Every structure is written in structure tokens, then in C-alpha cells.
């Protein structure tokens, strides 16, 4: 086990799977020799595996995704990259109508073993077209699995599982966690099963559930609140589809209180679904309303003070916890 960055762990996972299975290949814009991916995730892989298996594409998002579909149903295992999550708007047909529905609408005749990698989130002053968090759209798309790794160890185990999964996976990353480090197992078969949340911190008074950068903030907030005598349990779902509601509900049954926090704009975020589930399944255990902490319902602004206001901060998260304990 070595302490490496999320970026490095992700690359390790991709590399190991490419070594293990020659059907695995990467395609996307500027992922190859000249650039190595906009966030350098694939840097070095084209050198190692050749330009065939680490394939630069034209700026054709829908056809990138569709090519992955066609390759997947004929014996390959493509990992397609959409450079920014905002640009996935151009590939929605191939991802949501084709990849996600193909097994079903053809009555189980085919698997669609592909992964679409993309990156969400703000914090880099990239404004409205390069900062969104759109994961809830995919959570609402039957037939897709959705991974949301926030930690280096998870991103490696999950990408390997995603690649080996016979179903299409929307693999979401987050810009501001690429540089976070963690100890990551070297084991070639280090796989993290989908649908298993991880309790990142145990606590007794309130449950905090969140994704990506907000999870890191949640852990900081939990430390702060400990000083105030509030004991916070922090849960990382790791995948949204399948969603581990069991771990969450057990926690809520223990704490009686729940705060959900993501960087998505509030209305229709993944936090809405989780709140709806928990209020239904743990109604009698809830001692207070479930609180949601999200970005406001606006596009993502450019200027630092505006973007800082947009992205939930520790203060807002802490306040939401205090509001219900």
C-alpha cells in the first residue's frame, strides 16, 4: 500500500485492467500522447499501450459514446472519456437511450460492458459550461450504474469493478479530488463492489451523507463539531446506482437525524432521492426533518466570490447539522 493521489489511483486501475484484459481500451478527446487527458488521468498510458488502445478522438461526444456502445456489444470493453461532465449533454442519446436501454429493449440478448468516465464539479473558476454536477440525471436513467468515488482507494477499486461489470457504468469523478491522497492497495484484484456504502467516520448524534468534495468537507465538519460535543457519522455511498440504502438507514436508525450534502444544484439533486427514501423507510426513527445542503438553483458562476458562495462550504454544512440536533 502506498499513499498516492486519486488521479494516480485511477490511472493504476485503468492500467491494471488494460494489462489484464486486452479487450479494454480507452477513447476520448486528447487522452493520448499529446495531452494525457485534460486532467492527466491517462498520461503515460498511450506511451505504454499504443495509440490504438488509448485512442484520441475528434470532438464528437455523441459518437464517442456511441462508438463505445458498438464496441461493447461486439466483444470489446471500452472506457470512453467525456472531457467535462457539462459536455455529456451532447452524448445523452447514446448514453441514456442506447447504452442504458440496450440489454432491456433487446430482451437480454446483449450485455453492454462499457464505462463512460467524466468529471463534475466546480471550484476552478471554469464557469457555467465546465463546472456542473449532473449525476442525478444518470441516477434517473434505468439501465445505468453510477459510481461517485471521492477517495483514492475507492476510485481504484471502483474503476476496476466498473470495467469488469457487464453493464454500462457512468463513472463520475470530481475536479477537486484528483489531488487528494490516500493509501491505496496494490493488489491486482482489489475490487470494490458496487452498492456498498462506506462509513467514513462513526458517530452517534447525526448522520452526514454526501459525495465527492462535500464528503471531504463533511469529514472536516465532523471534526469541528466533535469539539462542540456533536458526534457525526459520515457515510460515503461510493455508488449511486446501485444505492446502498441499508447502511444509511441503519445509521439513521441509530442517530435519528440526517443531513445530505452534495455540490449539485438543489432541486432534483441526488439528495432529493435519498431524502425521499429515508423519510419513507425510517419515518419512525427520524427525530428531525432531513436537511439538504446543496448549491443554489443557479448556473455555476465564474468569479471567485460568486463561485465560493455557490459551492457549499463547511459553515453551511455545520449549520445544517446544528439546525437539527
Amino acid at each position, binding site marked *: 500500500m502506498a499513499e498516492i493521489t486519486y488521479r494516480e489511483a485511477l490511472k493504476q486501475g485503468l492500467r491494471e485492467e488494460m494489462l489484464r484484459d486486452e479487450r479494454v481500451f480507452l477513447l476520448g478527446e486528447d487522452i493520448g500522447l499529446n495531452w494525457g487527458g485534460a486532467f492527466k488521468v491517462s498520461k503515460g498510458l498511450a506511451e505504454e499501450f499504443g495509440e490504438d488502445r488509448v485512442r484520441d478522438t475528434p470532438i464528437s461526444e455523441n459518437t464517442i459514446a456511441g462508438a463505445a456502445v458498438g464496441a461493447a456489444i*461486439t466483444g470489446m470493453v471500452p472506457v470512453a472519456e467525456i472531457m467535462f461532465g457539462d459536455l455529456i449533454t451532447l452524448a445523452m442519446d447514446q448514453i441514456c437511450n442506447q447504452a442504458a436501454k440496450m440489454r432491456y*429493449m433487446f430482451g437480454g440478448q*446483449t450485455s453492454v460492458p462499457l464505462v463512460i468516465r467524466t468529471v463534475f464539479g466546480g471550484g476552478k473558476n471554469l464557469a457555467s459550461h465546465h463546472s456542473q454536477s449532473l449525476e442525478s440525471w444518470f441516477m434517473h436513467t434505468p439501465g445505468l450504474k453510477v459510481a461517485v468515488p471521492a477517495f483514492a482507494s475507492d476510485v481504484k477499486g471502483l474503476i476496476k469493478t466498473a470495467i469488469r461489470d457487464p453493464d454500462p457504468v457512468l463513472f463520475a469523478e470530481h475536479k477537486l479530488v484528483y489531488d487528494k491522497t490516500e493509501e491505496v492497495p496494490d493488489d491486482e484484484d482489489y475490487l470494490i463492489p458496487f452498492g456498498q456504502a462506506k462509513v467514513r467516520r462513526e458517530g452517534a448524534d447525526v448522520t452526514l451523507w454526501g459525495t465527492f468534495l462535500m464528503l471531504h468537507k463533511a469529514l472536516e465538519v465532523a471534526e469541528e463539531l466533535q469539539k462542540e460535543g456533536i458526534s457525526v457519522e459520515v457515510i460515503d455511498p461510493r455508488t449511486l446506482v446501485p444505492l446502498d440504502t441499508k447502511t444509511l438507514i441503519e445509521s439513521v436508525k441509530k442517530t435519528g437525524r440526517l443531513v445530505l450534502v452534495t455540490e449539485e444544484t438543489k432541486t432534483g439533486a441526488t439528495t432529493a432521492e435519498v431524502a425521499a427514501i429515508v423519510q419513507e423507510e425510517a419515518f419512525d426513527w427520524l427525530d428531525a426533518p432531513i436537511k439538504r445542503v446543496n448549491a443554489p438553483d443557479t448556473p455555476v458562476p465564474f468569479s471567485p466570490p460568486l463561485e465560493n458562495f455557490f459551492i457549499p462550504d463547511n459553515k453551511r454544512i455545520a449549520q445544517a447539522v446544528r439546525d437539527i440536533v
Partner: protein
Amino acid sequence: MAVDKKTLKELFSRTLKIRLFEEKVWDLFGENIVPGTLHLYLGQEAVAAGVTTALKKSDWIQSSHRGHGHVVAKGADMNAALAELLGKKTGSCKGKGGSMHITQLDVGVLGATGVVASGLPIAVGAALSCQMRKTDEVVACFFGDGASNNGTFGESLNMSAIWKLPLVWIVENNFYAMGTPIKMTCPSSTVAQRAEAYCIPSKVVDGNNALEVYEATIEAVKRAREGGGPTLIECQTYRMKGHSRFDPAKYRPKEEADYWLSEEKDAVNVIQKIAIEQGAITEKDADKIRAKLQKDVDKAGEFAKKSEFPEPAEALDDVFAEAI
């Protein structure tokens, strides 16, 4: 190109098979037992027949929303195909797909799709896979004139060209997208002109003549197999019926429709005449082939009709490899 008699006979019987299949569908539709909508292949039979006859069994086709003819031509089980159209459990998609998704993967059909032009990127991926797996497999992708106005057309043609993929683009130009005449939405007189943008060689053929379609496809498939990259073939043809279930197609000028729907232009007649003239079959053979095919189609119709509907809760199956 000299085409052998066996091939001519095959072209005739494939064209006819699709015709009889679609007439059966039309009859079942008349009996009011086909749920949903239908995009019949009637009139365009020579395209699917010509293209698929030029392919090997291990080759692939990508279908469109007008897919019955494609899958039947590629060798799909007619029982399962008709059962699918009726929404039966014995259908090739277990009743989950219907007309717009009629598909049989194990005979090389990548899929039929309800989203116009969405098959093109999938064909690109399949052809890339043929190339990367170092097979000699080729993909033929069917789509309409209307589809060539969609963004995926340019993206996909381009990708196929830069990677020299083993792909044959088959435009079925039936001159209409629903009620919209292609001349309203396409400034050039052929769709084929658009292939040049990507340095893809192209050819315009009479899509009601299975032999012409076949010959053009053979050449394109050869190029594809030899690593020469994609070709676009524009097959000019015409729908015998309206666009879909309830469309009387009144928007078509009479002379135009008369021309295309004449006896001489009829796809079955055209290839029958050629096959007889070139001594591949006799009138009598033709009748025999017809009778045999009709019997198969009738049997498929019976099979489909007497098959069971799926159980309601089967709606929950097949979302993932394993239920989550």
C-alpha cells in the same frame, strides 16, 4: 461485374422474403393485433436484400427504425421476428422491443433503434471493434435520407474515415422523412454528395434493383475488408405505404408516386425479371420459391399469433445482468 446464378437466385428470394414478411405484418396489422406503430419496409426490399447478400454471416448490420427488412434479410428467425412485433414472449426481444427495436444479435444485427441516426455511432464502434479484434468482419449501417441531417451523420462518417474502418454506409433515400420531402431539407441532389466532405467514396444506385445494390455493396465490402476504409452507398427507393401506421402519405405528388409504385419499378418484379433473363431461375422456380416462402411466413404468423404474451412482471427483468 459478372454475378453468378446462385447469387441472383438468392437476391430474388431475399427480396421476395422481405416482401412476403411485410405483407404478413400488414395483414396482422389489419387484424388489429400489432401494438404500437409500424414502419414498414414495403417498397425498399431490394436494399436490404442486396446489401445483406453481399455480406458474410459473421458480418454485422446496424438497423434503423425501419428495421423489419434488415433483420429478415440478415437471417433472423421469422417466428421470433413476427412474435416480437406482436409483443409476444417468444419474440426475439421477449416482447420488450417491438417494431422499432426488432433485433437478433446472433445473426449479426447490432440493433434497431427508435432514434433516427442513432445507429451510426454504434456502427462506428462495431467496425472499430472488428478492426481492433483483427477480424475480417465488416459492418453495414442502414439509415434514411432524413437521418443524414442529424449531427451523428457527420461525426460518424468522419470517425469512420479517419480510422479507415471496415464500414459500409447505406443511405436508404426514399425521398421522405415522415412527410418532409428530402429536397426541403437537403440542398444537394444526392445524399451521397455529403460523403466527399470526409473523403469517403460514394455511389448512387437504384435501390429498387437488388442486383445494383448488391454489386455496389460487394465492391464496398471488398474495400472495407482490405483495410481501404468506408464507402457510402445511396440507394434510391420509395415507401409503398406511408411513413408509419396511420399515414396515408397524401403529401406525395401523384406522378412521383405513380412512377415509383409502378409494376416496372417494383423491387420484386425487377429482380425476378433479371434473374429469369439471366437464366438463374424460371417462372416456375419463382412460383416455387414464392410458395415456399409464403408457407414459412404463414407459419411464422401462426406461431406469433398463438404465442403467449409475457407475464406482466417480466417488465422488471433484463435491466442489468443481475438484478440490483
